[in-house]
């Protein structure tokens, strides 16, 4: 039913499959896994626990399949990407010439922050390009909001057809351009954000920390500590790498506190920065502040245009 990667395809084949029923998903996964076993290719499943159980019940040979080390369903995109790259590197090093991955990606319909996972979907096109990888990102159309489906189509070069076969996706947008052009959504949720509760210009990291602590008294200790850290790191970045005045704005919502740190510069050249550490060298100077923020925030997005800003949200219950 599904076609393997074309023989001449090099590197990462990033494909999406939209399904409308459990049966469809089972058939899809079964064929994918079967082919992988026959080809001697390691296969990873990245579904959540309930879906994995469904698949285990329905498919016989699933035990022969590799699962990624369990990040738990609260895994953040940056953590997931780092772990996948590490896993793929190990597999290639131990001789794999083809790797398969299939799984659901979290989104608003599954209760996850979509902006962060969308950036992940855009970023993997580049971040996983070096691996001999066939990755299928599955989305359950029954619970996926239409705007998310639009975004999914914009970030996957290939779409799997229901009857098998594959089409090159005409709606794919080059990831860098897609992310740069994406308008920032509301910060506090669906409603209008209103003016910030705090608006400071020309802040130092120490001043920023004091602002966060003063404003974040309603947050649990762990969430407040995380917010304080990521804001300090982001302000430090803005002062070191950014240009002009560094501005901090903070909104306190019912269950969520949002901080936007902006500077007047053009922002990082690569809008996917932060999803991976800037460098693999553990001792290289800096370059990990934004990656930290991606790991520790509930949701995070970057916005270009009229300067550059990093928008960070911490939920009270994270």
């Amino acid at each position, binding site marked *: 039913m599904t076609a393997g990667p074309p023989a001449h395809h090099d590197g990462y084949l990033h494909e999406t499959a939209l399904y409308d029923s459990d049966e469809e998903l089972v058939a899809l996964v079964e064929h994918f896994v079967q082919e992988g076993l026959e080809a001697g290719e390691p296969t990873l499943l990245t579904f959540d626990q309930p879906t994995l159980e469904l698949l285990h019940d329905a498919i016989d040979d699933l035990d022969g399949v590799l699962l990624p080390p369990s990040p738990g369903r609260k895994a953040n995109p940056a953590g997931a990407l780092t772990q996948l790259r590490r896993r793929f590197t190990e597999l290639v090093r131990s001789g794999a010439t083809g790797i398969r991955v299939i799984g659901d990606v979290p989104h608003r319909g599954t209760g996850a922050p979509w902006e962060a996972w969308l950036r992940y979907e855009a970023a993997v096109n580049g971040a996983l390009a070096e691996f001999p990888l066939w990755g299928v990102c599955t989305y359950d159309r029954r619970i996926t909001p239409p705007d998310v489906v639009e975004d999914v189509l914009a970030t996957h070069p290939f779409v799997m057809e229901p009857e098998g076969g594959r089409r090159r996706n005409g709606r794919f947008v080059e990831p860098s351009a897609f992310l740069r052009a994406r308008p920032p959504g509301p910060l506090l949720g669906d409603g209008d954000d209103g003016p910030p509760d705090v608006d400071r210009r020309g802040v130092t990291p*120490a001043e920023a*920390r004091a602002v966060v602590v003063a404003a974040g008294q309603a947050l649990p200790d762990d969430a407040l500590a*995380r917010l304080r850290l990521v804001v300090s*790191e982001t302000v430090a970045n803005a002062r070191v790498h950014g240009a002009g005045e560094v501005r901090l704005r903070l909104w306190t919502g019912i269950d969520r506190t949002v901080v936007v740190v902006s500077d007047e510069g053009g922002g990082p050249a690569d809008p996917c920065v932060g999803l991976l550490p800037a460098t693999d060298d553990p*001792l290289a100077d800096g370059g990990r*502040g934004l990656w930290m923020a991606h790991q520790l925030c509930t949701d995070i997005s970057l916005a270009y245009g009229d300067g550059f800003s990093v928008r960070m949200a911490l939920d009270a219950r994270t």
Partner: protein
Amino acid sequence: MSPSIGGMGRAEEIASARGCGLHDHLCWSFASDDELAAVATDFLADGLEAGLRVGIIVPGDPAAARARLHGLGDVEALVADGRLIVDPVAERYADGRPFVPAEQLARCEEALDEALADGFAGLRIVADVSPLVVDPECRATFARYEQLVGRLIAERPFSALCAYDRRLVAPETLRELACVHPLTPTGLVPFALAAGDGDRVVLRGELDVAGATLFARALASLPDPTAAGVPIEIDAQGLEFADHRALLLLERHARDRGMRIVVRGAPPIVARVAELLELPSVEVEVAA
């Protein structure tokens, strides 16, 4: 509770030099002879009461310094009794010769042993060594010496106030030397990294990008582990903030010296960042 170094001596920001203990190591700055005399009197008066031999070491004429210490009582009698020493820097420190930390430390210890042999409970010193640190080249060496003194202070009944003359010493030098003292005047430096007894080190305050160079220099001033394979133990109960750069600096320091660092009593968020960074040579434990 102020974090302590192996149970001895305080580590915090202070507003005065009064009420200091047997194992306290302070940094202070001044811009007039009277200012120095006032803080010295505060520090030494308590020492006299505690049965310590006390002393002050100054660059200029000791007689002038003696005259300003009248707040301690009958200065001439104190000197005659051996309870108070007032000496020039030239006599107590290497005059004209290059400053060698280990040698100077030995002189400190000799003076302490003498005080104990003479029946005192210990030794307490105010030292104005500003002329020795005016040259920026001397900064790093002197900081290393301060750490060795810090260890002696933590291990034996020796307490010291290191006074720096703001008229002579550049602000950057003052900050660099201040941050290797467990006790510093409020607001002078964002953190302190000071050697305690054995392989223990106390770390308090906030570590961010603004203080990164200062922190790197403070790390460079730390003594080596007492034996090969022994980790440096950092008491971080007083650590209020650390960004990822600070943890990378710890890793680099440990890696460059072929040793390990264990950080104890750190805030949970610091342990979390360390976990994400996966540092091979640094282990971070959370406060119990």
